[in-house]
């Protein structure tokens, strides 16, 4: 009897009855062939691979993370709730010790969803990983979390949610934003004033092969994790770096994904993008599940691998080597050009956010209280071209007295202001309010 050397949980939710639109990459068919391949391989018969049934997440789970405008019903459909709930099921399986690690093979994805949600960005409405992480913190008292986002697109939603959080190390490795949506994710984006160096962006040039990814993993990501010492490691496991992917330009293979997973050994992996639904996803997912279970993946190979896979070009190898030297210097040697962060100082920034799927333009104005003991009180004023003008205040988990006081004062003041809605998320008291 075939046995997994590491007990692995699998939460599979292909949402066979949900699509953004009939011909959209996020459609019913997306995980059909993955399911075919997983079933044909007989992976669920392997002793130690355990499949779990999904459950929908509750609005309460979303409210630990997002300010939904105008409310949760309007931005999260049943499918989003179930995908997020699938991640909670995976988290429970791991944290209760039933399995060593788990893979939430769910759709729709979530890593482009930011703190404030007006609609769908980059196929995402709510951030599955963040909802799972805040659930884990609440239920299991875990603090230090690392996210390694290996989707081909910059995980700008997760970056936004954890921008100010010194307890979350967010690492995103992706195709260079100058060549791909969403156009962000450069090394200079390294975290807010209270969490400088906790966001690490690794933009790789188009045509980077698995050599390049594995090199970055070994030389940069693994040392960063060693230094941070997270209690739990989450992998945002997008599969659009694949050489067969139709909407990106990278050069990764199923074997590469398996090798990455075997080295990173995430506690929980969550599917993100990946749209080569016939000639990449089936093999990549089989590779990931097998790698998580500790099975030998040397037979996992795309049928067109020999014909279509090209080894990484030398100039790309050199570019990545140079990039890693620079990033090691910034993040491991500590040569970051940090902004001044004097206790009590309130730092403000403004930015425009575009929702590509729903064509929403959002303008944000953000205030954060600099703090040496907590993540700092956060206030976001957000205006959309759909007539919404909201203000949201976050009092983070473990907030100090001063930050809590500041946050409450901002909220009190906002209630009297001219906003369509005012939100307060007080993680200290576990309160979510919306006017």
């Amino acid at each position, binding site marked *: *009897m*075939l046995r997994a050397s590491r007990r692995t949980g699998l939460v*599979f*939710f*292909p*949402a*066979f*009855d*949900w699509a953004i639109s*009939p*011909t959209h990459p996020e*459609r*019913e*068919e997306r995980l*059909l*062939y993955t*399911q*075919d*391949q997983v*079933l*044909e*391989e*007989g*992976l669920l*018969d392997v002793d130690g691979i355990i*499949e*779990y*049934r*999904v*459950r*929908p997440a509750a609005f309460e789970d979303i409210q630990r993370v997002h300010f939904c405008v105008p409310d949760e019903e309007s931005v999260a459909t*049943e*499918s989003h709730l*179930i995908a997020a709930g699938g991640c909670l099921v995976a988290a429970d399986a791991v944290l209760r010790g039933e399995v060593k690690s788990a893979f939430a093979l769910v759709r729709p994805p979530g890593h482009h969803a930011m703190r404030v949600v007006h609609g769908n960005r980059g196929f995402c409405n709510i951030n599955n990983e963040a909802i799972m992480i805040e659930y884990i913190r609440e239920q299991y008292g875990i603090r230090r979390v690392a996210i390694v986002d290996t989707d081909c697109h910059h995980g700008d939603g997760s970056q936004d949610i954890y921008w100010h959080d010194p307890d979350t190390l967010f690492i995103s490795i992706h195709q260079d934003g100058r060549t791909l949506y969403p156009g962000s994710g450069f090394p200079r984006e390294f975290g807010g004033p209270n969490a400088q160096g906790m966001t690490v962006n690794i933009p790789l040039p188009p045509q980077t092969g698995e050599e390049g990814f594995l090199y970055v993993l070994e030389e940069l990501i693994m040392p960063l994790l060693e230094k941070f010492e997270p209690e739990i490691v989450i992998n945002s496991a997008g599969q659009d770096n694949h050489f067969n992917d*139709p909407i990106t330009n990278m050069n990764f293979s*199923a074997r590469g994904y398996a090798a990455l997973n075997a080295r990173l050994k995430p506690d929980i992996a969550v599917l993100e993008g990946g749209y080569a639904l*016939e*000639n990449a996803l*089936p*093999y990549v997912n*089989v590779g990931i599940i*097998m790698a998580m279970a500790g*099975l*030998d993946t*040397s*037979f*996992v*190979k*795309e*049928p*067109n691998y020999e014909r279509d896979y090209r080894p990484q070009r030398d100039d790309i190898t050199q570019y990545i080597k140079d990039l890693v030297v620079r990033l090691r210097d910034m993040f491991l040697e500590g040569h970051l050009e940090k902004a001044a962060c004097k206790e009590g100082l309130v730092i403000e920034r403004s930015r425009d956010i575009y929702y590509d799927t729903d064509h929403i333009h959002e303008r944000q104005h953000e205030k954060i209280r600099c703090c040496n003991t907590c993540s700092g009180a956060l206030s976001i004023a957000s205006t959309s071209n759909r007539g919404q003008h909201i203000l949201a205040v976050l009092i983070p988990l473990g907030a100090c007295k001063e930050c809590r006081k500041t946050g409450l004062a901002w909220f009190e003041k906002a209630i009297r202001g001219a906003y369509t809605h005012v939100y307060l998320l007080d993680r200290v008291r576990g309160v979510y309010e919306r006017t």
Partner: protein
Amino acid sequence: MILGLDVGGTQTDAVLIDAGRIAAAAKIPTSRDLLATLRTALEAVLSDVAPGGLERMAFSTTMTINAIVEDRLDPTGMIVSSGPGMDPAWFSVGPSYHVVEGCLDHQGFEAKPLDRTGVQNAASRIIKEGIRILGVVSKFSVRNPLLELQAAKWAGDAFSHVAMGHRVSGTLNFPRRIATTYLNAALYRIHKNFSDALVQILKEKGLNGPRYLLKPDGGTMDLDKSIQWPARTAQSGPAASVMGALALDGCKGETLVLDVGGTTTDMAVVMDGTPLLKPLGIRLGPYRTLIRSLLTHSMGIGGDSEVRMDPKGNLRIGPIRKGKPVALGGPAPTPTDAMIALDLLTVGHRNAAAAAMERLGAPAGWDAATTAERTLHTMAEAIAASAKAFIYNINSRPVYTIHEVLADRRIKPGSVLIIGGPAPQIAGYIEKALGLPSRFPRHYGVANAVGAAVARVTSEITLQADTQRGSVVIPEADVEQAIDQDFDMEQAIALGRTALCRQAAEIGAHENGLEICITEKQMFAMIRGYARTGRNIRLRMGIMPGLIPGWEIGG
């Protein structure tokens, strides 16, 4: 008249049914010689029957399962082609297992042609080893049988029997397809010999009516046609019990069926007359297969299980059976002794049973009646705990659509039906332990033989149509044909229905108007680069386990 015969591990039951009533029943011990057992049971129940009067005979036997468990399978060569995924060497079965190059993708496209020389070399090595039985399997052969057909052809005609993977089931699962194909090949000769011998016995007795074998899915198939599918005759005992429960009671609503035997208790769930099926297939000895099976669970507690007291003063029952109950001269106390001591059952030496109970309870200072009472209570509690876990597991099965998640359909039995020897004695205790109304039918002791007697023929097909590839495949029924861009669900259902009816008729379903059930129906638009390029239709339909026409519940 109808004859039903169920060979169990320790006992063989036979019933004769005349005009819907049980006219005769017999219970004999199962001996090592299966054919002798069958002969004795037949004679016991048929003594006053004119041979011509039998319109139907059905048997549930242990020939193939015993061969599997005792490792008496025929040497069988396997030629397997795989492609990307798990290492095919992990699924090696039999003495001569060969992996050759060649692969299909999940759509059934030939990604790499089958290595003809590789197949020929493998075949000649198998032949050199003196093996004349062959199984051929390829990954995704249920999407396109091409590679298996080629392998069978290229292996040459030196083989006396060749089993092919796509014919055993349309379900996706390559390792199970290998195991199931192997078993069908390796059991072929053993089962054929058994079937020939049984036919001979029936001939001697002048019994010429249609004859069937029971399958683990609670359905039957024609004995003569079973030769091609020997593995489908293994482990049909639990199915016989469930079908018996259905025949004697009807099992309306959601019913938990418990078959309390000598050493085990088997459980199943029947939903409004239809028993639940396993998602993939039955496990036979060490082999996980694609053979359709009722969803049953067996636990090691029965009327003859050993009862002992642990150091903490708690009673423990099973899973060991030391022998007969003390009242019948056995070595250790059993729940049956408890029933005898409490005067719930009149058999054997009551005093011996009471004394055994007294000895068992002595360390705790209980008298015989208290010990007996607690024994039955403990037994019922253990069965109830196991039943609850069984139902919990059914309800934890994954679902893949929003619709199913939101519908959140969960099984919650409203009553319990108990069959097997101790049914009347244990029913009250189980009712209390599970908090559900419990009942037992008349003829509870031979329900299994009744089940075999009146189970109808079942069959299943799996259809996949892919208009992009331009083909529709029904592997079990050997259907593969070209289709055009317009092939739709309606046509798929019509084609499936025809194939299913033909297949069912081939294995002995002679009635008109077969009750066909569509168990899976999916259609996906296939989009390539934002344009609709095809349609992917998946259908699974079958004749579900049920009773022969004309049978009236009750017996």
